[in-house]
């Protein structure tokens, strides 16, 4: 479904991604683990066309994402819920969510249904739907961001640290939601610090260090690995 081939990325002279090769199969939920600054967000932002790759390719079905514009990538069905949320702070929560369905603007009926779903998932958002998104708390904003990504009805959903700043209860729910989204047929790629919870719902996982993939495997294998346990699970 999504295959990264030898992908590299530079910020100025700094090589942030160095020959990343990995793939996500259709219907899979793949977790990307890595320390701060390892390059997880960089992978996602390159996949979404926000940053331009310095080399390599990202194949999505029969399309090449490298070189495509961000908007075309979303239209093709690869949608990201970014780190740092990147909401429209002055717009109401509702408008934020509706803009999530921007690429489906010519087909509004399913978007309506999706909106119901999102609001059911995050009831607090229904309560705050007319407030400007910027006035919400950090966690509430995170919910809007996830909701907005879901509104794009993605085939592949890229989630960049969705649990950042969320309360444990919400995190738990959120992982359930992610699993549900995945089970209903959406391919999911998830970057997480919360490795334990993430691995519990994942099909496969990659570990990235300093812009390079250093390990790959199914969750059991990673959970059994001592260095991984030490670095990402903490026990």
């Amino acid at each position, binding site marked *: 479904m999504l295959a990264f081939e030898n992908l590299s990325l530079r910020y100025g002279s700094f090589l942030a991604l160095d020959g990343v090769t990995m793939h996500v199969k259709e219907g899979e939920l793949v977790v990307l683990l890595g320390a701060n600054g390892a390059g997880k967000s960089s992978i996602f932002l390159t996949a979404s066309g926000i940053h331009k790759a310095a080399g390599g390719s990202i194949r999505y079905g029969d399309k090449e994402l490298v070189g495509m514009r961000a908007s075309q990538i*979303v239209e093709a069905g690869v949608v990201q819920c970014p780190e740092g949320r990147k*909401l429209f702070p*002055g717009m109401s929560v509702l408008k934020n969510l509706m803009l*999530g369905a921007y690429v489906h*603007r010519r087909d509004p009926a399913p978007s309506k249904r999706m909106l119901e779903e999102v609001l059911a998932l995050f009831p607090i958002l229904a309560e705050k739907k007319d407030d400007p998104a910027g006035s919400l708390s950090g966690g509430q904003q995170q919910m809007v961001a996830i909701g907005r990504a879901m509104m794009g009805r993605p085939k592949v959903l890229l989630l960049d640290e969705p649990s950042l700043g969320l309360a444990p209860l919400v995190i738990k729910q959120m992982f359930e939601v992610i699993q549900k989204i995945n089970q209903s047929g959406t391919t999911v790629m998830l970057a997480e610090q919360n490795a334990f919870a993430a691995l519990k719902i994942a099909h496969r996982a990659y570990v990235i260090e300093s812009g390079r993939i250093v390990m790959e495997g199914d969750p059991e294998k990673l959970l059994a690995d001592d260095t991984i346990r030490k670095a990402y699970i903490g026990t």
Partner: protein
Amino acid sequence: MMDMFLQQVLNGLTLGGIYSLVALGLTLVYGILHVPNFAHGAFYMVGAFMSFHLMSAWGWNYWLAMTGSAATVALLAVLAERLVFHPLRHASGLHPMIAAIGVLLFLEAAAQAIWGADFQRMQTPYNSIIDLGGVTAPAQRLLIIGAAFTLMVVLHLFLKKTVMGSTIIAMAQNRDGASLVGIDANRVAMLTFAISGVLAAVAATLYAPINLVYPAMGHLVITKAFVIIILGGMGSVPGAIVGGMIIGFAESFGAYYISTDYKDIIAFMLLVVILSFRPQGLFTKGVR
């Protein structure tokens, strides 16, 4: 006395309409790029010269010239976005501002090189003077008022009711966020600049026939437009319209009832006073 009062209302509407149009373009661009576009006054000036040129040298009629000028300035604005502001979109606040000054200097010098420094006079087909019960209303002034308000309403509907309009607002609030929902950020930025260019050119072409055309003509208008958008809250569309009216009326009434000498100061003083009470402008909501 009533006549005179109404006369000033008419003047206020004329000035306010023009100011609002210019300020709208400025506020839209500010919203998208968070750059105070100092070059906007130069867009206004080029708009006037283009129309003048198309009419006097190529013999186009007024409306055709306005269209041509709007297209040219829109193109110019888009070019400025591509070549100057786009590369600076991640830079700190000061840099794009200074780049805008560079664009302004360039456009002014270029206009002077092409059209010379002296005052030019633009013709209009609407020379009749309509007498509205003692109030003198030259047709061109009524045209300005009508056209300015029509444009404002159209713009408002465009932003609020169309998806394309909300993409501009979305872009204004978070550029990356907009890209991630599939909005083509570049296209929206160009669209916004084009709209701001059109507004500037149309405002200039409406106003030039009752004024003069010369390279420095943008200075005062742009300074006023800045006053207006900080009065109204930068990036706020209703703010630009209301602010434009406030300044327009302050000027026409100030000139009549206080002194022509001090009418410019009145507008600026108003700003100082209002901002002392509402530092974020009249129309900005507190956003975290």
